[in-house]
Structure formats: structure tokens, C-alpha cells
């Protein structure tokens, strides 16, 4: 049977981008279906009834949701260009950092972007604490995964392009040369890496999108008071 592989994504979702990168790095062909999250397709709802989100991977008719789960499936199914190390301890460490990114780094940076006043200040403290761990983790390494891009780099990929969008829209500094020289070097290496660099969503479109999001959120909060 011919291999049928579909990826449901949006143009901007950083989580879906992880899946796209993983498949492209492994040279696995796939069909892309763009979703409009304000008008979700019946297929998306059928394939991801629990969360109703992107990304969804459908392999020979069988759906999978949650980007980190999908990445591990891709890694186990297509073994070329490995994204995870072989050693169980190193694998556990990679999984730890990927989860840390989604559970701690992303929410705190998001709160720096979306919140105001005291809530934003507290979020900044948390975010800086998290970023410090990332900076330390990069010591002696080009990528989080070592010499080559791996699962952890894909998981942190949003840091390479979205953080400065947040910084520009909000007028705040999250990552700087004094505190995060290694993270900035990683960002440049990741942004410029083959395959990765061809798939970034348009920065202008992201600026517009997040500008609108921040305005809408701020207005809603003001109205609620």
C-alpha cells in the first residue's frame, strides 16, 4: 500500500512546525492540510476529538495528536536522521528538556507577552529563571542535542522565531547578549540550518497576528474590570 501521510497545521502554529521540521529533516514526503481554527474542519474534529487542535498527523488513516507524542512516533517510524540519542539516560534527559520547554518556558514567556503590571513582572522573573537553565544546558554545545539538531531543538524552535516577535510587539526584552550569549548563538544556528530556514512562517504576518492578539486580550481585560 502506498504510504499516506497527512499533517494538519495552521500557517503559524509553532507546535505544528515541529512536526513539519521532523518529517522534512528525515526526508519523508507528506501532504499538508491547513486549518482555519475559527472554522475547524470536520476531519480535524474527527481525528482529534479530545483537544480539537493542530498538529494532527494521519499515517495511513490512523491519527495522532500532541506534537511531542507525534515527534516520538516519527522518530520510531522513520529511522533515518535520528532526532533522539540511543542511550536511555540521554533520551530521558532530552524528554525532560522538551517537557520543561512546554510546561515552564513557554507559559512564562507567553505571560510576559500577554499580561500587564504585576502579573507581567512575576512572569518575567519566572521566564528569566527558565531561560537561565536553557543557557546552562547549551554550555559546550552547538545545539541542545549536540552537534546536530535533535528533538529538543525542534521542541524549542519557537524560541528562535517567536520570542523576538513578542519582544517587538510588546516592547520588552526577554533574551539579551549579556545574559544569554549561548541562547542567541543557538538561535542563529537554528534559524540558518538547512530545511529549518525554509519553513519559517512570515515574520510580518506573525507581527500582525500577535499585535492583534495582544490588543484583543488587553481590551477584553480592561472591559472585564
Amino acid at each position, binding site marked *: 500500500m502506498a504510504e499516506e501521510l497527512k499533517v494538519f497545521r495552521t500557517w503559524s502554529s509553532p507546535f505544528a512546525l515541529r512536526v513539519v521540521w521532523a518529517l522534512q529533516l528525515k526526508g519523508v514526503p507528506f501532504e499538508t492540510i491547513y486549518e482555519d481554527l475559527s472554522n475547524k474542519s470536520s476531519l480535524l474534529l474527527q481525528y482529534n476529538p*479530545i483537544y480539537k487542535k493542530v498538529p494532527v498527523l494521519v*499515517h495511513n488513516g*490512523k491519527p*495522532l*495528536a*500532541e506534537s*511531542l*507524542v*507525534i515527534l*516520538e*512516533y516519527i522518530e*520510531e*517510524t522513520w529511522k533515518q536522521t535520528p532526532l533522539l540519542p540511543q542511550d*536511555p*539516560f540521554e*533520551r*530521558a*534527559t532530552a*524528554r*525532560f528538556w522538551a*517537557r*520543561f520547554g512546554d510546561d515552564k518556558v513557554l507559559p512564562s514567556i507567553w505571560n510576559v507577552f500577554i499580561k500587564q503590571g504585576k502579573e507581567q513582572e512575576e512572569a518575567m522573573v519566572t521566564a528569566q529563571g527558565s531561560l537561565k*537553565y536553557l543557557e546552562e544546558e547549551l554550555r559546550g554545545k552547538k545545539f541542545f542535542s549536540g552537534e546536530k539538531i535533535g528533538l529538543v531543538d525542534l521542541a524549542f524552535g519557537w524560541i528562535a522565531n517567536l520570542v523576538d516577535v513578542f519582544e517587538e510587539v510588546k516592547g520588552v526584552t526577554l533574551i539579551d547578549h549579556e545574559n544569554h550569549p549561548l541562547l542567541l548563538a543557538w538561535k542563529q544556528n537554528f534559524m540558518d540550518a538547512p530545511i529549518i530556514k525554509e519553513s519559517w512562517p512570515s515574520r510580518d504576518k506573525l507581527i500582525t497576528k500577535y499585535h492583534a492578539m495582544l490588543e484583543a486580550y488587553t481590551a477584553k481585560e480592561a472591559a472585564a474590570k
Partner: protein
Amino acid sequence: MANEVVLLDTWVSSFGMRVRIALAEKGIKYEYKEEDLRNKSDLLLKMNPVHKKIPVLIHNGKPVCESLIIVQYIDEVWNDSSPLLPADPYQRAQARFWADFIDAKVQSVTRRVWTTKGEEQEAAKKEYFETFKILEGELGDKPYFGGETFGFVDIALVTLYSWFYVYESFGNFSMEAEFPKIMTWVKRCMQKESVAKTLPDQKKVYGLVVDLRKKLGLD
């Protein structure tokens, strides 16, 4: 090289219990160290500096943190018997999805069921019920979440059984009445020595929570 396995944990943690079940399933000998979370040991702070939480598995001096990551690690290292995850990549992905769901949706709501009152508690209960309804749907008529054999998702969820009496008492509902399929599955899991010997008595957990609620100023 000798296999030295140490587990930093607390007896009441439903996360720590997952690791203990996995270790028991594989027949792994280990040293158990009970942590006092109000006075964390230097070892814990050294082995989990990022989160400072239990459980932490220390294997030949190297730490592995986060209970689901630890269970996968155990499965990968001690891979000669009692597999905890399915062999098929798609089944494995489904197992990871549901274990992740349990952490994202179940573990996040249970605390609110026994620490809140009034409207907040009603909202928490509603979320709790919706989540367990989804889990009952996923279990269906299978003996275990993974199918014929006890595995990763069962381990992720069954540890909460020791806390059911807490949720029932403070939430004022009955798991047996609301989720009979889940309770049938629980009883099946409790037939396994690894589960029965790991899970503490529900009344003991309840006793601890009663004290905790007083300390938190809830009673």
C-alpha cells in the same frame, strides 16, 4: 558494573507510585528514600535542581526526573521482561498520548476537588467528571487501557485510586456510582502484586489530607 537504583519519593505521591509500580513490574531492587517536602534533602536538591520535586530515580548516580519519563526510562533499560509500553509505534504513541492526557487533565483538576469550596469546587468536579467520562470511553470494554496487558497508561492512572476516597469525601460523590467501568478496571489492576503492594491504604491517604487541610486553613 553494579546496578545501583535509588528512588527519592514520598509515600503518598501518586506520581512516585507510578515509578514504584514500574520497578516492581520489572523486579528491580532499589533503595527507597522517603523525602520530607518541607525539608528537602541535599540529595534531592542536587538531583533535581530544576523542579526540586519527587519522584527522582537515581541510577548508578545519574538522576532521571518526571514520573512518566522515569517509567519510560525503566522500560528502555530493563527491556528483557515485562514490557510497559507496546511494541508497535502507533500503539506506543497512543499510550504516550493518554498518559499525557492524564497529567494534563486529571492530575491538574484533582487537587481543586479537595481544596476548594462552593462554585470553585463545583467547577472542579464538573471538569473531573468530564475527564473520567473520557477515560471510561477510552477504556471501553478492554481489560486494560493498553488492551490485554497492563501497561503505561494503566500505571499512569491507577495510582490515583489511593486518592479516590479523598476526592469522594470532600467532593461528595461516589466513584463506583459515577464510573463503574473505571472501578472494575481498578479492581482488576489491584489483583496485580505490583499495584496492590505499592498503593497505600485510601484511609491512610485521607488521614494525611485531613491534617493537610487543617494546615492549609481549609478546615
